[in-house]
């Protein structure tokens, strides 16, 4: 049986520009190539800048994962300059980052991922009373009424009848891989619409603390939003009341809509618990400092660690010295040859585009096929993201995570091994969201308790003035962002950035083949027991790729080892 080359470009409903090529054979995927086709070079641009400005530049790496690069950058610079931020600032950052994660995960589920599982057209034939019955059985959400679902169905009916399908044009409606009954499809479509309104509301928390979203303002040394409960342009009683409202509405929607929907939909797709596992190694750097800094592992709400070879009995410690990057399949060259791996501190990035001259048709016939590098940990590819975080927490004995994971596994009547899959990645994202949405209330309570106790400090002033800095300093900041483990490294000479490096979640997940020929997580997942029924309608590919929540703009970065701007780019 001849293999068939299949290309999906653009992969839509993600951040950025991603291309997937596969070879299909007998309804399965035999081989896969993941290619990032955008390069910007932001780290070069940081050289010579004021380190206190870096958060703003790196935040623009991504507007979907807004905040995470800003926070990682602040942590890296604060580490280099030995700045300890006030506890209030730590709590505010937790709230800003966690609301980002919660909102991002919900948007991912409904607006980026759901249409892989939910057939919008099928919702037209649903009985709204049946939908209401299903919804009421799984959730007390007040909008789950027959009237509401009928109204939504009318809207969808009108839309389809108009002939102007807009963003739903050319969807794979009616594909045999869609398994939901019409009533559940209608449920999901209704909540797709509600989630659009919800996300706009809850993310206002960023505007309160950071002035706007996307790209709220951060500050090296703390946060700029001063606290004065008697003031008019500060965090005061009115703002605190508004914040509590958002936090409670965030939690309610997650617990009463997102999580029940996820479990209900997953129940119809249990076979995806055995599809798309791929790379068996998982890495979490941990997140959510409580009472300490992110460097203090014991203070983290979600723990740090590594799981190897799908062994759910052992957590290995994480050591950043074991990270190396390969460019064997990437459009760069190394002075020591394309087969070696280099630690980020010794990293080289010389772009060397050897792909075909555009317009072109295929990349899979080329040894190098992407702007993504291949990060490896002790030479091994690693998955990063919600699933690695939840696995590391689960194996570490994290009580909140274990309770929710076990509840989900029980409802779906599957074992823990089902987590190591496409479905597992999607479920883990939901589990994490439930925990964070609840945890935000604690952080907000803690903040208010501190204010009540008389502490209104949000910023550490001692090291703000560059005259207080050493002539030479370096530091790094870790973060477990919505899409996974993120690290920023900075070196500062005489008050200016001499070197800056980011190692980003989507680089780990979207990495191409390394020198040993090991596929990265996207590719390996597509080659793990993976169906592709109709090559012209690559719905199954979208399911697995979207389960990683790709962010391409984040994934491609560049820095020259000597801190020099790139001066030469070769195009064959």
């Amino acid at each position, binding site marked *: 049986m001849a293999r068939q080359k299949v290309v*999906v470009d653009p992969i839509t409903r993600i951040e950025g520009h991603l291309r997937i090529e596969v070879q299909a054979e007998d309804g399965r995927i035999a081989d896969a190539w993941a290619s990032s086709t955008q390069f910007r070079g932001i780290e070069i*641009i940081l050289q010579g800048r*004021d380190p206190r400005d870096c958060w703003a530049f790196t935040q623009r790496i991504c507007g979907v994962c807004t905040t995470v690069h800003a926070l990682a950058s602040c942590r890296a610079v604060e580490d280099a300059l030995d700045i300890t931020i006030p506890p209030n600032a730590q709590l505010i950052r937790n709230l800003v980052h966690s609301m980002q994660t919660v909102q991002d995960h919900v948007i991912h589920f409904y607006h980026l991922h759901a249409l892989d599982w939910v057939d919008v057209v099928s919702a037209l034939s649903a009985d709204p009373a049946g939908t209401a019955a299903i919804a009421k059985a799984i959730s007390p959400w007040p909008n789950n009424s027959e009237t509401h679902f009928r109204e939504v169905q009318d809207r969808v009916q009108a839309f389809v009848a108009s002939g102007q399908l807009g*963003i739903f044009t050319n969807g794979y409606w009616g594909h045999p891989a869609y398994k939901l009954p019409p009533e559940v499809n209608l449920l999901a479509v209704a909540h797709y619409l509600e989630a659009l309104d919800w996300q706009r509301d809850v993310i206002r928390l960023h505007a309160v603390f950071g002035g706007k979203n996307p*790209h709220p303002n951060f500050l090296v040394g703390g946060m*700029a939003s001063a606290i004065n409960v008697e003031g008019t342009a500060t965090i005061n009683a009115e703002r605190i009341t508004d914040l509590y409202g958002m936090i409670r509405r965030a939690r309610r929607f997650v617990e009463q809509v997102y999580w029940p929907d996820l479990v209900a939909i997953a129940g119809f797709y249990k076979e995806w618990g055995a599809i798309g596992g791929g790379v068996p190694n998982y890495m979490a750097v941990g997140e959510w400092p409580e009472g300490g800094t992110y460097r203090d592992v014991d203070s983290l709400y979600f723990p740090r660690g590594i799981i190897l070879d799908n062994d759910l009995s052992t957590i290995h410690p994480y050591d950043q010295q074991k990270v190396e990057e390969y460019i064997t399949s990437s459009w760069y060259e190394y002075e020591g040859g394309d087969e070696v791996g280099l630690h980020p501190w010794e990293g080289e990035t010389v772009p060397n585009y050897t792909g075909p001259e555009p317009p072109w048709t295929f990349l899979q016939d080329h040894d190098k096929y992407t702007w993504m590098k291949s990060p490896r940990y002790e030479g091994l590819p690693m998955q990063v993201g919600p699933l690695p975080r939840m696995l590391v927490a689960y194996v570490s004995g994290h009580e909140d995570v274990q309770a929710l994971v076990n509840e989900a596994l029980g409802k779906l009547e599957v074992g823990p091994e089902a987590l190591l899959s496409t479905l597992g990645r999607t479920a883990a994202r939901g589990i994490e969201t439930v925990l964070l949405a609840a945890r935000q209330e604690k952080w907000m309570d803690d903040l208010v308790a501190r204010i009540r106790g008389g502490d209104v400090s*949000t910023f550490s002033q001692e090291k703000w003035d560059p005259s207080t800095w050493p002539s030479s300093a370096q530091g790094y900041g870790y973060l477990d962002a919505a899409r996974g483990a993120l690290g920023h490294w900075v070196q500062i000479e005489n008050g200016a950035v001499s070197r800056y490096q980011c190692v980003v979640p989507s680089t780990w997940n979207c990495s191409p083949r390394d020198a040993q020929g090991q596929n990265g997580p996207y590719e390996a997942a597509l080659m793990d027991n993976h169906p592709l029924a109709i090559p012209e309608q690559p719905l199954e590919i979208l399911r697995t790729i979207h389960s990683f929540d790709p962010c391409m*703009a984040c994934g491609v970065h560049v820095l020259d080892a000597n801190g020099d701007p790139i001066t030469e780019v070769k195009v064959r």
Partner: protein
Amino acid sequence: MFFPTSHPWADGETLGEHLQQRGVDRREFLTFCGEIGAILGLSSLLTPKIAKALTQVQRPSVIWLQLQECTGCVESVLRTSEPTIGDLVLDLVSLDYQHTLMAAAGDAAEGALHDAIEKNRGSYVLLVTGSIPMNEGGIYTMIAGRTVKSILEEVAADAAAVIAVGACAHWGSVQAARPNPTGAVGVSSIVKDKPVVNIAGCPPIGDTVTATVVHFLTFGRVPALDYDGRPTFAYGKRIHDQCPRRAHFDAGQYTQVFDDEAARKGWCLYQVGCKGPACFSPCPIFQWNTRTSWPIGAGHPCIGCTERHFWDTMTPFYKRLPAVAGFGVERTADTIGAALAVGAAAGVATHAVATSIHRARHRKLPVAGQGQAPPAEPGPGAAPPSGKEE
């Protein structure tokens, strides 16, 4: 918000008829038009005109290209304004191609793009986010095997209007900051045969985008623009001149360092680097995230993100602007008044926005010694980038 109404759009049906079908009465509709008019900075006398225009148009096709970017501008539009009004605004168009939200991928997505072009040649609105990397033949951003430059050229050719959304599409933004490794440029460097509206900001406020589209549908032409292609309804005034903390500037009441007593009193952020005196933006008026707050309102200085090359001309962000003559409400009024005489408004909305203060055509003109003066000492990025912009 990107979703259908409960009644189908029949062939030839106008928005007015359509809204009637939906059960929206005349009074509600006029209220909506008034709010849109407020965003656009138009006199309430024009509300009936907006209403008339909106009731006559049919849903035009909108194609949204995403080039070299971070998707933050798309996210910003997702946060737009009030739910029901938002529904209506976005219900005015048929969003036929938009990577972040569209169901189709790969060939099916590209098919949707080409169908939309074919069916609406000469009448579709093109929104663009992201810059165009020009170096090495454009290989730094490719979609479906093509450079984004070639895609933009093809799609722009038959567009009725081209709206560049955000700093990247405006002039290249962060990837165009010195040394601009990929040679990133904005849309107006590629599209030369028709006016390009620049919705400035990194990102812009989403409401500015929707209001610009409504303006186009209402008046049949793009809004009046300043020297840099920015709609005057949004970018006609400096932040400094609309800032609620301006009285503290005039009174010499400054935050000296973050979280000091002055910061806790909400005083002026000029001394900690605020670029409000050099930045034309709707932030203080429109505000962000359904009018929840805005950067200065949350205690952080403005970084000047609606201005071209701000990553180089406005940095270091925490260094105060030199020589902003202070304490002079009268002086400011005088000089702005002089600049106003130089400003030029065009189009049907001229009389309606005449009360807005227009920026002079020359970059450094708005207020001598204020406005756009570059930082006194050339910081790391003080000079404009040496990239291939234009």
